[in-house]
């Protein structure tokens, strides 16, 4: 059994540490009340999902998954997550990319992403994006 969650959790997978900093700073300014858990590689995130499946870690309300990462890119991660029965439907995965390349978007949806989001620009744009995430959980 998963433990009782105090606050909902958003997971962010990105090889760029700056993105975590930016997101956490804008989270403070947004209307969201949630924890941000970060992983700087796809492998680290997949390891974490094993704990989630074992009920040792809370089930993430939402995953923001970077597309361009070294070694294992966002598509590889997405494919592996969706192959796992425990995460086929329940886990909401949003691709979080700096590219609005059409082929990337198509591929993301083919592999089972729930949404494709181009990383937002500065200030209000970022905050509005975070506020829009409330449709995915009780943040």
């Amino acid at each position, binding site marked *: 059994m998963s433990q009782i969650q105090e606050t909902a959790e958003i997971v962010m997978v990105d090889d760029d540490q*700056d993105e975590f900093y*930016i997101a956490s*700073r*804008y989270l403070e300014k947004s209307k969201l009340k949630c924890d941000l858990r970060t992983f700087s590689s796809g492998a680290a995130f997949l390891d974490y999902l094993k704990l989630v499946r074992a009920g040792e870690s809370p089930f993430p309300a939402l995953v923001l998954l970077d597309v361009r990462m070294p070694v294992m890119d966002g598509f590889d991660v997405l494919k592996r997550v969706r192959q796992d029965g425990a995460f086929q439907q329940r886990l909401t995965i949003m691709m979080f990319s700096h590219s609005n390349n*059409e082929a990337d978007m198509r591929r993301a949806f083919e592999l089972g992403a729930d949404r494709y989001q181009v990383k937002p*620009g*500065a*200030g209000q744009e970022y905050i509005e994006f975070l506020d829009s995430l409330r449709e995915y959980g009780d943040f």
Partner: protein
Amino acid sequence: MAVTLGSERANVLIVDDQPVNLDALEEILRITGYRIWRANSGEEALRLLLENEYACCLLDIRMPGIDGFETAGIIRQDAQLENLPIIFVTAEAKDRKDVFRGYEKGAVDFLIKPLEPIAVRSKVRTFGELFLQKLALREAHRDLEHFSQVAAHDLREPLRKQRNLLDLLREDLALAQRPEAGELFARIWASSEQMLGLIDGIRILSGIGCETLQRESVDLKQVIERCLEGWWDQLRERNAQVQFDSFPREANVYRPLITSLYNNLVGNVLDHALGNGFEIRFTAENSRSGWVFGVRNTGSAISANRLNDVFKVFRKADGARTDGRGIGLSVCKKIVDRHHGRIFANSGDDYTHIQFALGERTA
């Protein structure tokens, strides 16, 4: 005889109903290194032509079924094949006069049997080398396009991050309460904005990020006023007079592209207008064929023989005072093309007027 490197990438189709003739042709052409494809009828030739791209086709005229002339006629009516070079092959001298008849498009040549190997190779080589050059050019173009896409993407991302961090820094330092630092920050912000515009311009030129855009109904005057917010400091500094024609209530456009269009046009004016106190007018004329919009400014002129050149990449109009953007107006043209519209420049002694129609169906 030397074989061109990569010559096997040039496909040559030989068509004859007699296998022995195909054998002979293939033997003659072997030394060219081109990839030879055989067809023993007009029908088979047409099937192969649709599957691959060929440097040229050697076509026997006398064949059962559809003969060489009929095959050529079908080839010339196909949009993809109409420019395929055709070399007719015949034993009948009297066919010669028919060879050049009725084919306006594409190259046509002929060979008389018995075939002279040197003549055959020479004619085929002409088209083969041309074809290889075409392939090389196409690949170079594709590489360049890919490079500019990657470059624009990779340049944009650190800039986006930098702007996010700058925005956070502004808050942390409470710059709004410190006029001098605030002004410094505003300048940094404006210059990074300009950089972003430039990168987005390159993106538009190389066609990325535009695939998923949708047309929407916008208040064009409002879009322009939004753009101007980023330019007011410079406009005020140079004491520019901003005027508006009366605009239609809405226009059906790709909003992000139109924003970029007006940003480029205003930037263009600031780059080229001499001195201060010039006028910049946002024009809107309702012509019979629909609305024509534009930006007209005093204080700069383009000479008549350069009017058509200003939309080409890296061409600058005469009298460019500063190191202008170089790509600004070509980005504008690309955006207008994307709207299926047209863009043109007018100029007089002391004014420049860039005008465009946006290919809207509604008036």
